[in-house]
């Protein structure tokens, strides 16, 4: 089976770039809390989504709509409208995390294909089978915590497709359950759709050229003048602790996932779709990363050794990891 290359589109221009660079499917969301990349200036208006679907479909590319945050009481209408608009515009699937949203799609939009977001953090065959049985989920996006043998084992026990991340931002907390941003800012990654809201991120340049990063009232890192930087997320910050001489990465280092070398094993394990992270990134990123993985996947399928373009310049901290796919060690 030919795996699908699922690519990020934070803006209409990025969507067209991903389609033109060879994406089999693009994923995108509306400009509100219904999707887990609710960043300022990003995402799609309803008109833009309708046009994006037209552009993609005319070129044989699918559009997957991310409605993958968790509605709180009294706000469900926003998520219902997002699903309804997606169905009206002809998206090929909705990616959901919340069981209420999944139930709404199953009951009211039974023809709409349902994908289970990584935000649902379903990693056991039992959990995945539950979503398949109750809501008719057709594909699960696996959390980034499984080794390849584990993915293979899960695949053998579930009646749906598997999508795995192969490139991009790498936050190792269990997806959909991280409350670090909530603790520091009062806004929730999972319910408001934004980790480290930009309005609360501050970079203070110091006279020696170093930069201190603050999120709300908390200093989360300080980069020396020549040090590589990372995203301003708490999980990638450096902290002082009583038993440490220097500030250290308490959770995770700034590093990006890159599974390019593992593509053959992932295909062999039965993965049906490869996901590239980065809806918050530019067209330049989309063009380079999608183009590189298009070539690599096609070469693997043709039985050739994949040529792996050097993508390190685009990675966080200019460092790459194979994450849990290669080892269960934390880092």
């Amino acid at each position, binding site marked *: 089976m030919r795996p699908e290359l699922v690519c990020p589109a934070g803006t209409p221009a990025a969507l067209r770039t991903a389609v033109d660079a060879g994406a089999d499917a693009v994923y995108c969301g509306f400009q509100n809390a219904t999707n887990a990349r609710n960043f*300022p200036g990003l995402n799609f208006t309803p008109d833009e989504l309708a046009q994006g679907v037209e552009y993609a479909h005319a070129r044989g590319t699918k559009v997957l709509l991310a409605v993958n945050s968790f509605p709180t009481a009294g706000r469900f209408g926003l998520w219902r409208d997002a699903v309804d608009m997606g169905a009206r515009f002809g998206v090929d699937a909705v990616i959901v995390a919340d069981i209420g949203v999944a139930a709404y799609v199953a009951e009211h939009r039974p023809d709409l294909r349902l994908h289970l977001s990584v935000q649902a953090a379903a990693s056991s065959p039992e959990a995945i089978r539950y979503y398949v049985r109750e809501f008719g989920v057709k594909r699960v996006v696996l959390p980034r915590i499984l080794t390849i043998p584990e993915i293979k084992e899960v695949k053998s026990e579930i009646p749906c497709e598997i999508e795995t991340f192969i490139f991009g931002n790498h936050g190792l907390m269990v997806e959909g359950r991280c409350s670090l941003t909530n603790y520091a800012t009062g806004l929730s990654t999972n319910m408001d759709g934004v980790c480290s809201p930009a309005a609360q991120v501050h970079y*203070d340049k110091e006279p020696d050229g170093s930069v201190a990063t603050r999120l709300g009232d908390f200093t989360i890192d300080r980069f020396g003048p020549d040090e590589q930087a990372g995203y301003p997320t708490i999980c990638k910050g450096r902290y002082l602790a009583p038993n440490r001489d220097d500030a250290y990465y308490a959770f995770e280092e700034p590093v990006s996932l890159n599974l390019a070398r593992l593509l053959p094993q992932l295909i062999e394990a039965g993965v049906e779709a490869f996901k590239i992270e980065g809806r918050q990134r*530019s067209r330049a*990123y989309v063009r380079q990363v999608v183009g590189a993985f298009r070539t690599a996947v096609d070469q693997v399928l043709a039985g050739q050794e994949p040529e792996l373009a050097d993508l390190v310049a*685009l990675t966080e901290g200019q460092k790459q990891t194979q994450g849990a796919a290669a080892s269960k060690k934390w880092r």
Partner: protein
Amino acid sequence: MTEIAQEKSAASGMGPGRFLPPPPLFLLQPVLRRVVRRVADLHPSLFDRLGPHRSAHFVIDARGLPFVLLLVPDPGNLQFRAIARRAEPVSDARIAGGFFDLLGLVDGAEDGDALFFSRDLDITGNTEAVVCLRNALDDVEGSIAEDVAGLFGAPGRAVLAALRRAGDRRGSGS
């Protein structure tokens, strides 16, 4: 700093002096006005993505140029002016980077996050306003740099081509 990083940062700081000797600022202002008007006319949807940050004052510091640029992307009060460094105004946000890196951003050729990770881009002030501006500019189809070059006909396009070549050489050299 490694030798490579030193070369890169020296090259990033290099202005486009070989191609565009900086004219006196009063000669530059009408050109900048035309440039920003042209971009606004071609891409009106850009302002929607800026949301509440349309009235923000952005200072853009292309290292190596003898002036900074002030941008107010408000369709009702559009401003794009060159200001001497010693008279830099108070701003909501400040974006500083090498000339070729900033050109790459408006040319759709560079990724803002990557430049930030490598510390080639410095951001201070209102981060949300900068993120909005970045996303709004990135959603512009084609290249803003090309739109601007087109304003000056064949000579404009020739200058852009020369700058792109210089930027590429710098990239491959580092």
